[in-house]
């Protein structure tokens, strides 16, 4: 059975006899960002909140409902893990881990963890060091610099999660998540918490707008199948 037949069958089960003309498909990214606590955390849960829950805005997630795609079905073709922070404060660097976000990339929280995607109690993804194995691959911003800060301090080090499109984690065959079907995406740290290193840069984990909270997120890239209205 090919993947397309499997998906068509599942759609037919959901909608009775499936009428193709009643559905439309489009490329879509569903995303979910959560704050990373300064002290680390044993597990991060994504897609557990919808827009509007507890002040969550469309900058943090575009999930229509908690833990499912609502009336849409979704074919996951690629997965990216990302981060965002209001101010990386490049001029703060004084030669210590605390004063550069670079330390998180090379020796911090992005080098640990295990990501799991579970649908209907079945594991569809189980990957270690997920921020490196499932990188953004989205054309990250680049910064160019020269010179030294002083005789003993080099220029700000610069590294980020992979920006190469060929590093994108491709789900092949793709993963089908039916409408109303609950799923969970977690990143856990069972071998121990990983507190932030760049403590002079990441100065709040409260998730309050305007503070320098580090958000980490998951982007599911694929094809949304939704009923035609």
């Amino acid at each position, binding site marked *: 059975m090919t993947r397309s037949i499997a998906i068509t069958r599942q759609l037919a089960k959901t909608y009775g006899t499936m009428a193709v003309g009643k559905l439309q498909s489009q490329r879509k990214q569903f995303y979910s960002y959560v704050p990373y606590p300064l002290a680390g955390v044993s597990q991060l849960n994504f897609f557990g909140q919808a827009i509007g829950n507890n002040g969550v805005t469309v900058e943090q997630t575009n999930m229509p409902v908690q833990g499912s795609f609502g009336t849409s079905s979704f074919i996951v073709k690629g997965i990216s893990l990302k981060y965002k922070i209001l101010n990386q404060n490049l001029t703060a660097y004084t030669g210590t881990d605390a004063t550069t976000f670079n330390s998180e990339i090379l020796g911090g929280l992005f080098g640990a963890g295990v990501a799991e995607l579970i649908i209907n109690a079945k594991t569809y993804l*189980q990957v270690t060091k997920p921020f490196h194995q499932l990188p953004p691959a989205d054309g990250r911003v680049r910064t160019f610099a020269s010179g030294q800060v002083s005789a003993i301090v080099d220029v700000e080090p610069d590294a980020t999660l992979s920006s190469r499109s*060929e590093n994108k984690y491709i789900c092949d065959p793709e993963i089908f998540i039916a409408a109303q079907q609950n799923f969970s995406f977690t990143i856990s740290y069972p071998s121990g918490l990983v507190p932030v290193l760049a403590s002079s840069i990441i100065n709040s984990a409260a998730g309050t707008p305007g503070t320098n909270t580090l958000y980490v997120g998951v982007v599911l890239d694929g094809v949304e199948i939704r009923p035609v209205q």
Partner: protein
Amino acid sequence: MTNSQKILSQIDQKFGTSVAGKFEAIRFQYYDYVRLPVGGTNRLTFFSNPIGAVDPTSGLAKTLEETNIRRSGELDERFAIMQVRTTIDVLPIKRQPAAIAALTRAAVQDLTTTHQALRNLNFQGVLSVNFGQKNFIQIEQPFQTCPPGYGPSIRTISGSAASGTFPPISQYATQSVDPRDVYIMDPSIFVEKGQTFGATIDFYMNNSVTLPVVTGSDKAAVNIGVILDGYVIRPVQ
């Protein structure tokens, strides 16, 4: 016989006549990380200690971050190996020995000598993967031949220092992060559920590198991983 015929034939033997619609294939990884002995070793053994078992070098119980096998030397699903990756992972600073974790510039400077040693490790070792008594994979210099194919995008490494007129050199070594360099199994290797297998990296000519002291008497904690990437073939519920 093509490899796909071989896989179907093995599934037929297991389930009578296989009905393709009753199975699903998903991309999956089986992985195992072991702690690199700081004084060097002549053999690293993988997939022998499942989740909950103690890593003999670190003395810590393995979690899902280190392995996802649940029985020693066995996979819990039928699996087709498409790619083989090896990784050299310096643990995050906050998981390093206490004296290293307490350093204020461990990530940007103090692990330089560790990275210099790990660069040399890339030229060592032979990876062997055996199923039953038969050898299916034998690769020399596995850290270079089977790199992970993922990793950060690094543009600048900065030293900085609190002493000296000029900062000391800072270095950071990585295996290839280019996915085109990953070792492809073609034809793929089909592993039956419950079939015994094992993997080792042997250092026949010399032991693996000795890691340098970072501070006090503490040396860096480094995990070595073998990742088998491929397709799990499992019944549809």
